[in-house]
């Protein structure tokens, strides 16, 4: 069995009387794409917040690549190899696409207390950024202001920013949400190209995308993982069908 890169144990987080995360265990193997699905209100956002370091769990632990990161902040986790996309597109709207990605490169190129040289002229930032933009298919749009990109392109840009940090773990929060059919297919195709090279946690409502991409699926309902396993197992699980898939069928 491959070494697990992310190990979540007995994670709990409550808001008042509501247990949004109610004893979640999660185990991620290097290189797998692990989807987390669940109906609205299942606690996916809260779980992601704790994984990314924006929310403090009440108890439990998160280990990443052998290190306990439970109490690290979001930037600290990012510097150790966490990268994420947000459910609602989160980019620098007033920067060009290239500058967006170059910032992500910069974040992982040592400290930024450099006060004089124009960052835009630094090839060490620009060149890797351009490579990643090409990779996600935005090469031709490098100099467009991010705000002026189409919605699908903005989602791509966000993934590009995450990849530019050369992450060990990619956390994708509904990457195809709000996309048209064609855009969504292109994104799924792109993500499947990452499979094996990149460890991915995929939170997604689009079941087509989930069953295309995921190596394993965990089903989150009321803050608990009620099932976890290969896609066929999860699809066949009666409890899951009742709690979740059944609603959609």
């Amino acid at each position, binding site marked *: 069995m491959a070494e697990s890169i992310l190990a979540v144990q007995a994670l709990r987080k409550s808001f008042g009387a509501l247990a949004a995360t109610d004893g979640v265990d999660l185990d991620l193997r290097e290189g797998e794409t692990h989807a987390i699905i669940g109906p609205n209100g299942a606690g996916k956002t809260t779980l992601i917040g704790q994984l990314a370091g924006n929310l403090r769990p009440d108890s439990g632990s998160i280990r990443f690549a052998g290190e306990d990161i439970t109490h690290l902040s979001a930037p*600290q986790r990012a510097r150790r190899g966490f990268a994420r996309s947000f459910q609602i597109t989160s980019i620098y709207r007033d920067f060009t696409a290239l500058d967006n990605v170059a910032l992500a490169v910069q974040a992982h190129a040592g400290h930024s207390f450099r006060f004089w040289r*124009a960052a835009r002229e630094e090839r060490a930032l620009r060149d890797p950024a351009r490579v990643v933009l090409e990779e996600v298919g935005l090469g031709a749009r490098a100099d467009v202001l991010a705000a002026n990109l189409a919605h699908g392109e903005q989602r791509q840009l966000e993934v590009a920013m995450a990849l530019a940090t050369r992450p060990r773990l990619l956390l994708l929060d509904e990457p195809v949400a709000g996309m048209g059919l064609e855009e969504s297919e292109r994104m799924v195709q792109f993500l499947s190209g990452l499979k094996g090279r990149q460890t991915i946690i995929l939170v997604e409502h689009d079941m087509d995308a989930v069953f295309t991409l995921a190596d394993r699926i965990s089903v989150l309902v009321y803050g608990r993982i009620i099932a976890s396993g290969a896609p066929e197992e999860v699809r066949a699980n009666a409890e899951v069908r009742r709690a979740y898939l059944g609603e959609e069928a």
Partner: protein
Amino acid sequence: MRARTLILAACVLLLLAVPPLATVFNQPYYIDLLRRVLIFGIAAVSLNLILGYGGLVSFGHAAYLGVGAYSVGILAFYGIHNGWLQWAVAIVASALVALLIGAISVRTRGIYFIMITLAFTQMLYYLGVSVEEFGGDDGMRLKVKSQFSGLVDLGDPVTYYYVVLALLLACMYLVHRLVNSRFGRVIRAAKSNEARTRAIGFSPYPYQLVAFVIAGAMCGLAGALLANHTAYITPAFMDWTRSGEIMFMVILGGMGSIPGPALGAFALLIVEDQLAGWTQHWQVIFGPLLVLSVLFFKRGLAGLLPGGGKDG
């Protein structure tokens, strides 16, 4: 972009021509007025670094004006008139005060930040008022202007004017370099989208704090200039309305633009001067003018220039 460069170059030429023109037309008052504009231009340029590029709405920028001015005044009070030393102390003291205020306030966000920066400046204001040795409420005279080893004589209004102009341009160039550097990118990124900035691995706090300190130091220099300009130092330099005015200069001129704050300082102080010449109750007109400018003129003066309102 070329038209913009031409217009800005013309502005600089006009500013260079002010002293000879004022002398020819026998209107020395305008040298004085424009010098004041340029000094506040430096203060506004410094605030723009954190407000326009960093998104930190500091309502206490006048504090550093006061610290800079009192540094000069207190050294002069003890008989130290060396300008190199005085101005260095002004810059370093302002940087230290900014470090203390910033260390507490930059951690906070939004309305807390506004109120805290305002409150700390008010604290310094009261400190100035209550220290009787340095004139308390009445302030103190600067009997001897800063001495620069006989190289420049600030006593000569024209020389002093050019010194201030050169420093303003230097500050604008410095801010231009800063906001385009890796450092500047981080503070601009944090302004644009803090969650994203943290998610890619930046902790904005140390960068924002350093920007806050640089802005404070630069405004401290403006304070040292102001002390020599008025030859009088009072706690009124740190009055909270002064902070508001500097903020207005940045907004009026255009946030996140290199020439904007200087244009804003020009517009605000000239309008003030004209209204004040017209009626002693000028603020009753000035206040609503400010309200209207906030409501309807968000782009700022720099936005009227060809090439738009943003630089960097």
